């Protein structure tokens, strides 16, 4: 059984997922990266929707990196579901989006996002920002009690 802390990437953009996963691997973070391509799947992994995929072991996901605009459930929809469930209410959620629109940003914070990261393009170190953000939440951030690694 994998005991690394889990990072859940939720995005419908394969290019982003490729670069993000590659960057996290290259950054040598000791994490277990789970990838889901839509909101439903993400909620299943978090055990907030029944069936479909094997849910993550309880309390192993320490941060969700959630795309704002996705077909089907939007990032805000997923965030709302995460925040409305007792078990995941305090789970750190980082919104990741191409949008810099003040409206989008403030809506996410209003809905209880912990952070908002704008997708970067960076030919020098592609995806490094995702790895950096993940590193903060995995290594530096003290997670809420329910997620505390013992």
């Amino acid at each position, binding site marked *: 059984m994998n005991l690394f802390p889990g990072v859940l990437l939720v995005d419908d*953009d394969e*290019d*982003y997922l490729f*670069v993000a996963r590659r960057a996290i691997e290259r950054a040598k973070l000791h994490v277990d990266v789970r990838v889901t391509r839509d909101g439903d799947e993400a909620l299943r992994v978090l055990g907030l929707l029944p069936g479909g995929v094997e849910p993550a072991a309880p309390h192993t996901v320490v941060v969700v990196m959630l795309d704002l605009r996705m077909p089907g459930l939007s990032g805000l929809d997923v965030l709302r579901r995460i925040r409305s469930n007792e078990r995941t209410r305090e789970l750190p959620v980082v919104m990741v989006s*191409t949008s*810099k629109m003040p409206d989008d940003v403030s809506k996410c914070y209003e809905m209880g996002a912990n952070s908002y990261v704008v997708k970067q*393009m960076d*030919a*020098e170190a*592609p995806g490094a920002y995702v790895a950096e953000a993940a590193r903060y939440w995995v290594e530096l951030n003290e997670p809420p009690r329910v997620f505390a690694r013992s």
Partner: protein
Amino acid sequence: MAQVPPSAPPDAGLGRTARAEAGVAMPASIPPARTAARDPATAGTSGPIPLSRAVVLLLLAAGYFGAAKLGLMLAIIHASATAVWPPTGIALAGLLILGYGAWPAIAVGAFVANLTTHGTAATCLGIAAGNTLEALAGAWLVNRFANGRLAFYTGMNAFRFTALAGVVSTTVSATLGVLSVTLAGDASWSRFGSIWFTWWLGDMGGAVVVAPAILLWSDGAATSWTRVQWIEAASLFAVLLVTGQLIFGWLAPVGPEPVVLKFLCMPILTWIAYRFDPRTAASGVLVLAAVAVAGTLRGALASASGMLNESLMLVQVFLAVTAVATLVLAAAVYERSRAELAVRVTSNHLREALAELEAFGHAVSHDLRNPIGAVVNYVGVLEEDNRDRLDPESMRVLGRIRACAVAASHLLDELVKFVWAGLPAPDKLMLDMTALAREACAEVVVASEDGGAVRFEVQELPPALGNPQMLGRVLHNLLSNAVKFTRGRELRQVVISGSVDGHETIYSVTDNGMGFDPALGDAVFQPFRRPKGERPFGGAGLGLAIAAKIVRRHGGRVGAESDGGSGARFWFALPNGGER
């Protein structure tokens, strides 16, 4: 005066639903083919006359004849001159609807009606010629200057119709007719004036009372009234008939009434004109005319006062005045409701277009940014993984790919902001512009590579009412513009100042850079405008356009001044609620 009358029907292009929304009764549609295809100037001159047309012409002649006989029954001052002459209206409307080619029907109708009443063939021919020429002249003038048969859909054309076909062309018939009878020795020259005036008055009444009703009823417009509107219209006509009885005694005799009582009819007709369409108004006028003439006749016959012609002339003048006022009002009301409708339709279109533009902006910002970002990232992946294996030329090509993608991405960012700037400003607040300007300076310094080398001076700025993000963007864009154009100066300086000027507060960003060509003027605020020689990737050319758009969205103005060498001043003025 010589404006070309539009050939399209008054409400072409407005849908039935839109019309219903207006809450004003209007003709549903007037088939454009009637005016466009059947050009009055050529109608009836080409090819054999189809049977249906022959029947129509026959009916026109018969109608003219019948109305003429009716009019001649009231000929008092002279057997051929009457103060009541509805045929003029029938002839005028006939030529406007059927084309000038229908004139023989008028000529025949007039000739036969006169011949069977009074006079020799020669005088009747003269009278008929006058009647026909009057109709031709009236129709030509109305076609030329008052939009032809559609004259009663705008106030101005309704006026022109009355003046041209009511006052001007009717002189032809009166002159030719009275000349005919006088030259034939049927009337003395001494009475020429009084006969002429009676004749002319009768014709004018026919033109302004009868012709409008025929024209408006023949234009094919459908009536789409609600039940309530039908009841209202029926009530108004009932009131009109009752009032007509009280004033003119058309049903039963009434005592002699003061002349002023006649004007009691005005409010009723005004109401009809205001609440309904020109057609209903014209119908009201026609009904009143019938009632008035019938009543006058009855009253005069009963009293045997011998003043019948005078009474009829008085009634004619009254009817003419009433008709003009009513028809012009109805036309003006119609015109206004149509204009309102057009504005509503246009603003609906604009709203839809704006919503589409927003959706487009969102789609572009997301769907296009992702692949462009992916290109840049993949170039990075290639470089990282193959740095040792790729030759310098390949690395150079990769570098170019990256630069192009980065430039495209910047352009995209600006486009998205440009769309955003066009959205209505959300929640406006009273803003500390000094703080906002300081923030913008800090942002610009961080965002630009060389912003640190610029000396910013933020003076005390008056507050402004606006959206913080949007006005922050305005300051940001003006400041980064200033940073860009002070490059190359030893001492780079940017001053932000503000002042209250009456109803406006003006904010200025002044720099000591290279300035711009003064001939450009406010064109610097147009999108995608870049000064000559600037690197193509130096910016999308949207920064100032975005700023201008936001300011205008806030109800303000922008401007720029430069001497073309020693700096520039960009300013924007926002309304401050003060007195204009």
